C-alpha cells in the first residue's frame, strides 16, 4: 500500500512537471515552425521595408529593444535593489518601510498599460514628443517592485548568524550590510533582476504611448524608437502575409534574445563562485 501511494504521488509530480514544461515547449516549437523560415541575415541587418515591398528586417527594433531595456535596467535595478536593502536592513518595522512595501506590492499589480499612461503623463506630455527615454522609464517603473521585493526577501533569508559574525568582527553595520549580507544574497537578487528584465522585455502596452515605435534607425533617447514587441504588435495586426511572417520571426527572436541575455548574466555572475559556496 505504501509503495502504491509512493508511486502514485511520484507519478502525479511527474505529470505536473510535464504540464508545466509542455506549454513552454509548445510555444517554442510553434514559433520555430512559423517564424524560422523568415529568419535570414536581412532580418537582423535591415530595417522594415515600406508597405508593398517584400523583405526587410527588424534590425532597428532589436537595437531599440536593447536600448529601452538598457535604460529600464539602469534606472530600475539600482532603485529596486536600494529599496529592497532599505526594507530588509535599515527600515525593518518602521512605518515608512511598511508603506514602501505596500506601495511596491500595489505597483506590481498595476496593469502595464497604466504604467505607459503614467510615463506618458509624467514625461511625454511635458516634452511634447514621444521618446525612447519615456519608454525606458515606463519599463523601469515595472521592474522596480519585482526587484525591490525579491531583494528584500533574499536579504531576509541570509541567516542571522552571518550578520552577527560580521558585527562581531567590529565591522560597521552599513559595511556589513553591503559587503556581507548583500553579497551572500546576491545570487537570489540577480535572479530577481533577471525575472524583472525578462518580464518587461516582452511588454508592448507601456511602450505604445511612450517609445511609440519607429520605422527607421534611431539610437537617440530623445526620439521615438522601435522595439521588438511593438513591431510584432503592428505587423501581426497588419493585413499582409509577409508582415505576419516577420511578426512570427520577431517573436522567435525576442524569446531567444531574452534567453540569451539571462544566460549571459548567469554565466558572468557565476564565474568566480568558489567550490562549496552555498
Amino acid at each position, binding site marked *: 500500500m505504501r509503495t502504491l501511494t509512493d508511486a502514485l504521488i511520484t507519478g502525479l509530480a511527474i505529470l505536473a512537471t510535464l504540464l508545466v514544461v509542455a506549454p513552454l515547449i509548445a510555444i517554442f516549437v510553434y514559433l520555430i515552425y512559423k517564424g524560422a523560415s523568415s529568419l535570414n541575415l536581412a532580418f537582423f541587418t535591415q530595417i522594415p521595408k515600406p508597405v508593398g515591398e517584400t523583405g526587410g528586417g527588424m534590425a532597428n527594433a532589436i537595437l531599440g529593444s536593447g536600448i529601452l531595456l538598457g535604460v529600464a535596467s539602469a534606472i530600475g535595478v539600482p532603485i529596486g535593489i536600494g529599496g529592497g536593502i532599505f526594507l530588509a536592513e535599515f527600515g525593518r518595522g518602521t512605518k515608512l518601510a511598511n508603506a514602501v512595501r505596500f506601495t511596491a506590492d500595489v505597483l506590481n499589480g498595476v496593469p502595464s498599460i497604466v504604467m505607459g499612461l503614467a510615463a506618458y503623463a509624467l514625461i511625454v506630455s511635458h516634452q511634447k514628443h514621444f521618446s525612447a527615454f519615456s519608454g525606458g522609464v515606463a519599463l523601469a517603473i515595472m521592474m522596480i517592485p519585482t526587484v525591490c521585493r525579491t531583494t528584500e526577501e533574499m536579504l531576509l533569508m541570509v541567516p542571522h548568524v552571518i550578520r552577527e*559574525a560580521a*558585527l562581531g*568582527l*567590529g*565591522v560597521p553595520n552599513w559595511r556589513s550590510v553591503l559587503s556581507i549580507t548583500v*553579497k551572500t544574497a546576491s545570487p537570489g537578487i540577480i535572479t530577481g533582476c533577471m525575472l524583472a528584465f525578462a518580464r518587461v522585455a516582452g511588454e508592448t502596452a507601456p511602450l505604445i504611448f511612450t517609445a511609440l515605435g519607429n520605422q527607421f534607425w534611431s539610437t537617440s533617447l530623445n526620439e521615438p524608437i522601435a522595439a521588438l514587441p511593438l513591431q510584432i504588435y503592428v505587423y501581426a495586426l497588419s493585413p499582409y502575409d509577409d508582415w505576419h511572417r516577420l511578426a512570427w520571426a520577431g517573436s522567435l527572436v525576442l524569446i531567444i534574445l531574452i534567453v540569451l541575455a539571462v544566460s549571459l548574466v548567469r554565466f558572468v555572475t557565476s564565474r568566480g563562485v*568558489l567550490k562549496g559556496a*552555498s
Partner: protein
Amino acid sequence: MGVGIEVINLNAWYGTNHTLQDINLNIPANHATALIGPSGCGKSTFVRCINRMHETNPIGRVTGTVLIGDLDIYKDAKPVQIRRRVGMVFQRPNPFPTMSIYDNVAAGLKLNGYSNRRALDEIVERSLKNSALWDEVKDDLKKKSGASLSGGQQQRLCIARALAVDPEVLLMDEPASALDPVSTSKIEDLIFQLKSQYTIVIVTHNMQQAARVAEKTGFFLNGRMVEFDSTHKIFTNPSDKRTEDYITGRFG
C-alpha cells in the same frame, strides 16, 4: 596580550524580561574562564554584553559598567571599537558562505579598510596556524569556500577569523556544542593553547569541558551569578547549595 575584565553591577533586559541582574565579577587576564548554568540562565547574554552585541537586538538594553583593561566600554568607546578588541566565536559555526577560506580570515581586516596584501598573507597564515587549521586548508586557501569545510573545521575557521583582528579577549559562546567529540577535543586543545595570549571567556553546557579548559568558573542561575571561584573549588567544594545541586546533576 590579554587584559582583564571587570564587571560592575551589570543588568540586561530583553524587552521587559530582566535577563541579567546585578552581575559583579573580575575575569583574570590570560586565563580561560568558564560560565556554566542551565539554559536561559543568562550566560550567553552576559558574554554578549562584554562586546556590546546585546544591544544589536532592538529590544536589548544594558546598564552597569564593563571595564576591558582600563576602558569603560559603555562610556568611552563605540561598539565597533570594542568588538575589534573583544573577538567572539558563536555557537553555530558561521563562516561567510560566499567567501574563500582566505577571505573569511581576512574579512575583519579587509572590511575595516586594511589592504596591505603581504601583511594580510602573514596574518591569515598566523591566524590559521593559531587555530590549528593551517595544515588542513593551506592548499585551498583561495579556491574553496569557507562553507565547504566540515563543521569542526568551520568553527576553527571562525576562531581564526576572530584572531586575525588581534583581539585581547576572546568570547566563546558554546563553541563546541554543535560539534562531534573529535572536533570538540580539538577546540578544547586550542583553547588551552590560546589562553597564554588571550583572555578567554567560554560559555558551556558541558561541565567536563569547563573543568578541562578553565581556571575559573562562574555559575549562573536565573539571571544571577550564584558563585564565581576557581574551577577546582566550584567542582569539588562549592560554597553555594545551588551550585552543588547543579554540578551533581540534581537539576538543569
